C-alpha cells in the first residue's frame, strides 16, 4: 500500500467489502466502531488464506504447512508487539479479547498476589470487563475494591485518585480511553502516580489501540490489554502484554496442551512465556487476521488515524448541538481530550427508539449502557445512544446522523 499523508475515508471504503452492500438503498453509515470495527479485505483474506492453504496446528507439525502456520502465528505476535511498542514478542500473550486478558491477570497474577485487606483501585468509567474480574477477585480474597470518580465533564477526578492512592493499592487498573464517553485519560501521569506508591498498573487499551498511537514503554504500565476485533481484526483476537519478569513469576491461567514442558501424572513443569499462558490450540486464523489488520493500520499511520478522528469529533461537537436542539452530549467537549465516541441523549426520545429509527436510514449506532452501567449511574441516565467513528467514517456520516436525529426529535416532540 502506498504511504498516505493524510487519511481519505471515502477512498478507504473500497478496501471494505461491506460498503458494496446497500441498506435500504443507501450506503451503510456505520457508527458503532467502538463496539466492533468493520473488516477490510486484507484481514478476511489473511483469515481465509490460512484456513484454505496452510490450516495446520501451530508449534506441532514437523511438516511444511505446520511450519508455515507457526511462522504466521508467531509473525502476528511480533506485529502486535511492534504495534504497541513492546520490545520483546515473548511479552505478548495471545488471547480472545481484552476481557480474557483482564481475567487472565485477575486469576493468574491476582490470586497469587492479592491478599486479605489489600486494595485494588479502578474507576467509575470502566467497561464491565475492568470491574467484574476485580469484584470476583476482591470478594474471594476479602480485599478492597475502590473506584475513582469522574467529574461532570467526563474527566477522571485526579484529586480523588490521589486520595485513593494513599491506601497503597497493590494494583491500579483503568482504561486509556473511555468506551462510554470517549475521554482520553492522562495515562502516563496516572501510571507514574500509581508507581510512586508501589502499585502495579493495568491499562485497558481496547479503545486506544485501534484509534491512536500506543506505546507501552512510554506509558510505563505493567499490564496492557486490547481486543483485535475493534482494530479491524477478527473476533477472537487480542493480546495481553506484561513485563517479562511479572509474567515469569505468574502461575499459569489455564492448563492444557502447549503450556507445558513435562507432564507427569502428579506434577507438571510449565513452558516458558508466553506459551505458559496459551493452553490449547489458539485461534490461529484470528491471530493471523489481526496481524494483517495491524499492518493495514500501520500503513495508514496511527497518527493519521487519530488526526482524522479528532477532526470528526470536532465536527460532530460543532454540528450536532446546532442541528439537533434537544441533544445532550456526555463527556469531554474538547476534541483533543476525546476519542471518536459521541454519547448522547435526546430530550424526548429513548435511545432505543433513536437507534431503531436511525436504522431505518441505514445508520448504525449503539443504544443502551454500552457495558458501562456504573458510568451511566454517574451520568444519571438509564441508557444513552452512542455514535463512534473510525477510518471509514467521514463528515457525510455525521451529516446524515444529524439530519436523522433532527427528524427523530421532531417526531417525538411533545405537542
Amino acid at each position, binding site marked *: 500500500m502506498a504511504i498516505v499523508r493524510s487519511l481519505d475515508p471515502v477512498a478507504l471504503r473500497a478496501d471494505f467489502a461491506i460498503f458494496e452492500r446497500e441498506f435500504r438503498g443507501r450506503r451503510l453509515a456505520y457508527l458503532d466502531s467502538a463496539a466492533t470495527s468493520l473488516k477490510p479485505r486484507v484481514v478476511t483474506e489473511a483469515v481465509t488464506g490460512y484456513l484454505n492453504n496452510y490450516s495446520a496446528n501451530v508449534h506441532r507439525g514437523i511438516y511444511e504447512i505446520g511450519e508455515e502456520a507457526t511462522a504466521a502465528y508467531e509473525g502476528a505476535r511480533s506485529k502486535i508487539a511492534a504495534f504497541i511498542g513492546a520490545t520483546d514478542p515473548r511479552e505478548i500473550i495471545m488471547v480472545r479479547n481484552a476481557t480474557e486478558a483482564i481475567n487472565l491477570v485477575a486469576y493468574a497474577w491476582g490470586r497469587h498476589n492479592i491478599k486479605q485487606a489489600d486494595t485494588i483501585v479502578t474507576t467509575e468509567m470502566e467497561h464491565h470487563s475492568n470491574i467484574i474480574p476485580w469484584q470476583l477477585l476482591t470478594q474471594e480474597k476479602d480485599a478492597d475494591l475502590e473506584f475513582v470518580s469522574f467529574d461532570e465533564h467526563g474527566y477522571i477526578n485526579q484529586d480523588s485518585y490521589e486520595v485513593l492512592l494513599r491506601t497503597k493499592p497493590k494494583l491500579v487498573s483503568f482504561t486509556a480511553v473511555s468506551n462510554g464517553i470517549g475521554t482520553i485519560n492522562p495515562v502516563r501521569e496516572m501510571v507514574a502516580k500509581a508507581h510512586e506508591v508501589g502499585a502495579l498498573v493495568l491499562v485497558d487499551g481496547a479503545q486506544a489501540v485501534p484509534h491512536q498511537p500506543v506505546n507501552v514503554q512510554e506509558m510505563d504500565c505493567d499490564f496492557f490489554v486490547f481486543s483485535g476485533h475493534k482494530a479491524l481484526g477478527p473476533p477472537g483476537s487480542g493480546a495481553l502484554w506484561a513485563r517479562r519478569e511479572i509474567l515469569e513469576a505468574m502461575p499459569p491461567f489455564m492448563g492444557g496442551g502447549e503450556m507445558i514442558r513435562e507432564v507427569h501424572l502428579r506434577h507438571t513443569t510449565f513452558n516458558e512465556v508466553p506459551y505458559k499462558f496459551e493452553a490449547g490450540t489458539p485461534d490461529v486464523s484470528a491471530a493471523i487476521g489481526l496481524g494483517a489488520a495491524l499492518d493495514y493500520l500501520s500503513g495508514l499511520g496511527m497518527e493519521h488515524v487519530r488526526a482524522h478522528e479528532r477532526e470528526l469529533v470536532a465536527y460532530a461537537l460543532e454540528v450536532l448541538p446546532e442541528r439537533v436542539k434537544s441533544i445532550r452530549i456526555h463527556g469531554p467537549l474538547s476534541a483533543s481530550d476525546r476519542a471518536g465516541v459521541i454519547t448522547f441523549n435526546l430530550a424526548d*426520545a*429513548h*435511545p*432505543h*427508539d433513536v437507534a*431503531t*429509527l436511525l*436504522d*431505518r*436510514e441505514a445508520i448504525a449506532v449503539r*443504544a*443502551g*449502557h454500552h457495558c458501562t452501567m456504573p458510568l451511566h449511574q454517574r451520568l444519571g441516565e*438509564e*441508557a444513552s445512544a452512542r455514535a463512534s467513528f473510525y477510518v471509514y467514517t467521514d463528515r457525510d456520516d455525521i451529516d446524515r446522523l444529524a439530519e*436523522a436525529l433532527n*427528524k*427523530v426529535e421532531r*417526531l*417525538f416532540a*411533545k*405537542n
Partner: protein
Amino acid sequence: MDDLYRDEILEHYRNPHNFGTLETPTTAKEGANPLCGDRITLMLAINDDGTVEDVAFTGRGCAISQASASMLTDEIKGKPLSEIATLGRQDVLDNLGIEISPARMKCAMLSLETLRSALSDRVAWQGKTDEE
C-alpha cells in the same frame, strides 16, 4: 422513518393511559429489562369474582415498552382473569401494529411478562410463556 412508529404509539408514549398508582392494589409487580433499562410497575385491583376492576402502571423506557404497557392496561381493564389468561404475545404485537425487530421484542413484551408474573399464582396462562 416516519412510518415506523404509528401516531397511535407515539400518542400512547406521550400520554400513557392508566399511568399512575392504585391506592389499594390487590397485586403489584415490578418488571425490568436490565439490558436496556426499561422498567414498569404494574398495579392491579382484582375483585372477588376475579375481574380486573382497575389497573395502573408507572414506568420509564422506550416508546415501544411504554406504549405497549399503556395498550395492555387498556386491554385488561374490566376483564375477568379467565379472559386475560388467553392473552399472548401476538395480541401485544397486534395492538402495537408495527414491525418489531428481534432486538426490540423484549421492550414490546415487558408489560405482558410483568402481568404474567403478577398473576402467576392466580391464572393458568393459556398462551405460551416463552417465544411463540
